[in-house]
């Protein structure tokens, strides 16, 4: 069975139609990329999948393991195994990164009827994941995303993903604002998380990221629809031709 099935998805924001019939099927263990110009609906798609309030599905469905998730709250979707790496990670002053991560892990444990993880156990588990991403202990102690550089914020997103071990992750413009070194670190982190059970949807404006996170499939999103799909070579073609051939982008 497919892990994720998006069928004829239509969604509006403030009553304005943004997604106009998206079909996308993602098998376990695969990485799909969605590319598209500004305003094509990329971020809207990620929010609709994650269940953000204010993003209304007007038609179609999103299935996880063959079951619709549309009636589920954002937190229920997260616990079911859905993860969104934010384009703009949010600051939560006063809440230590570790505290936040521990709360997220414990929410999952609670839902599974397991006992909460204790602080020592958790720290040990965390250390294993931080090495990979070059996340320092100092960064763990800092408040969530507060005073983080752009690169640190993105690394922190991937760290959360590594700790929460989602089955399906959406990476929304994870490359934006990163220099090439930071991009490599983040991409290495993501690649290390690829596994036969886990699927990813990498949303990006530029082909550059896909040199490092090599997708199984590439889709082009324009004006709320997927207008082309292909293998990783599609990304290279786009790099050469741009989005001009895929209709006028809406205002960003």
């Amino acid at each position: 069975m497919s892990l994720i099935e998006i069928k004829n998805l239509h969604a509006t924001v403030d009553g304005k139609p943004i997604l106009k019939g998206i079909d996308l099927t993602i098998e376990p263990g695969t990485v799909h990329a969605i590319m598209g110009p500004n305003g094509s609906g990329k971020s809207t798609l990620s929010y609709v999948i994650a269940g953000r309030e204010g993003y209304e599905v007007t038609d179609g469905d999103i299935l996880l393991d063959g079951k619709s998730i549309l009636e589920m709250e954002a937190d229920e979707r997260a616990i079911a195994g859905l993860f969104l790496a934010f384009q703009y990670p949010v600051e939560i002053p006063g809440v230590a990164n570790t505290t936040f991560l521990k709360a997220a892990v414990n929410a999952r444990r609670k839902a599974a009827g397991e006992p909460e993880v204790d602080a020592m156990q958790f720290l040990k588990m965390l250390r294993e994941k931080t090495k990979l991403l070059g996340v320092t202990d100092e960064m763990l102690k800092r408040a969530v995303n507060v005073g983080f550089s752009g690169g640190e914020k993105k690394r922190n997103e991937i760290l959360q993903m590594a700790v929460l071990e989602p089955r399906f992750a959406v990476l929304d413009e994870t490359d934006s604002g990163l220099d090439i070194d930071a991009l490599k670190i983040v991409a290495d982190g993501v690649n290390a998380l690829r596994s036969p059970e886990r699927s990813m949807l990498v949303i990006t404006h530029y082909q550059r990221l896909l040199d490092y996170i090599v997708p199984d499939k590439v889709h082009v999103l324009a004006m709320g629809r997927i207008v082309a799909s292909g293998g990783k070579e599609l990304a290279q073609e786009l790099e050469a031709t741009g989005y001009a051939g895929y209709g006028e982008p809406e205002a960003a």
Partner: protein
Amino acid sequence: MVGTAETLEQVQAVQDQKYKYGFITDIEMERAPRGLSEDTVRFISAKKGEPEWMLEWRLKAYRHWLTMEEPDWAKLGYPAIDYQDSYYYAAPKSKDDRPLSLDEVDPELIKTYEKLGIPLQEQKWLAGVAVDAVFDSVSVATTYKKKLEEKGIIFCSISEALRDHGDMVREYIGSVVPYSDNFFATLNSAVFTDGSFVYIPKGVRCPMELSTYFRINASETGQFERTLIIADEGSYVSYLEGCTAPQRDENQLHAAVVELVTLDDAEIKYSTVQNWYPGDENGKGGIYNFVTKRGACRGRNSKIAWTQVETGSAITWKYPSCILQGDNSVGEFYSVAITNNMQQADTGTKMIHIGKNTRSTIISKGISAGRANNTYRGLVKIMPKAENARNYTQCDSLLIGSKCGAHTVPYIEQRNPTAKIEHEATTAKISEDQLFYCKQRGLSEEDAVSIIVNGFCKEVMKELPMEFAVEAQKLIGISLEGSVG
């Protein structure tokens, strides 16, 4: 540890927004006749077998109170309180003779304490807390007194102190908060029924956190406890005060007075977690909390730190203050005040700098949700002789929803040009971005609010003793349940 384990279990069991301490213990009560008169005052004093001077002091206060007007400057709205329509003294009936040990305490009372999660059992000594539990008006049981006595520490009810340490009480009572101080403190001076008394001798560091658990039980009784803590030269004590009250439809009045005195090089750390019944979402019921708390840093290099987490009460009127009299003395005020639904809080502090090189810090975090109103009201006063006085004030407000209010009313009186005063204030809202981010990581909306608010309050929470902090964190979550959405 204030029954942390049990309390947390209970706290976690509350998922339906009900006030969990809303049970009423069925014990026969002995009450003073309804209403307030000289006879009421005499009745209370006689019941407690007080010395003559105490009765005279009470009567002086009562007569003065008759001439006073209830203050109306706070940003609070509530129907007029009928002071004649309340009981001023309620004691469990079987308690004519003070219990000498826990075995003598009415098992019903013990059960109440167990529900509250108060660790009255001796084995809780391991947790390092001695509890003086005030059940309505009479202090029912004081634990670990012996351990403390070995160090010369006196920790008992104020009634006992009047009996056994009368001279000391006489010297200090009313010396920080005079009987004529303000409407509510004066009322308290006339009719106070019990409270705690602490004396830490010279050079002694109190080996455990001292704790009082206040609880208002009897219907329509006001609670007027009076606490007096004296830290002699070079001593240190950390005092915890927790408050709960059963859920009732009528409003109950609480007008306490707390007086702290530190002599040279002494330090008192006074922490409060107040979760009295706040009334229901329509503003029915709840405690009216009019409290006067004040500390005098009389000695050089002495220090008083107030930390409060206020989540309950329908009305909060409370300004824990420091009089920084001794040179180099330090006053601190750390406050979290949460108001939800129809709650109103007008709270803050006064820092009165009298001595040289005196320093004060004020960190206030106000959180409003529902239709609640939350006001910080503070005074920093630098007297002419307070050379090089320093104050730092930070007032942050957090709003949840769009029907609540946050207000900041800082007063500064500067009468010495060498003083430095800093004031910072911020107001923020919990953003939809933050909530979504937390939810996307798997936190429920309520857990998300709780973690964001706890983050906002962090600078204050870290000042609480560890055991208290855990309880307070949970309380913050509970008191804001249902506030978003």
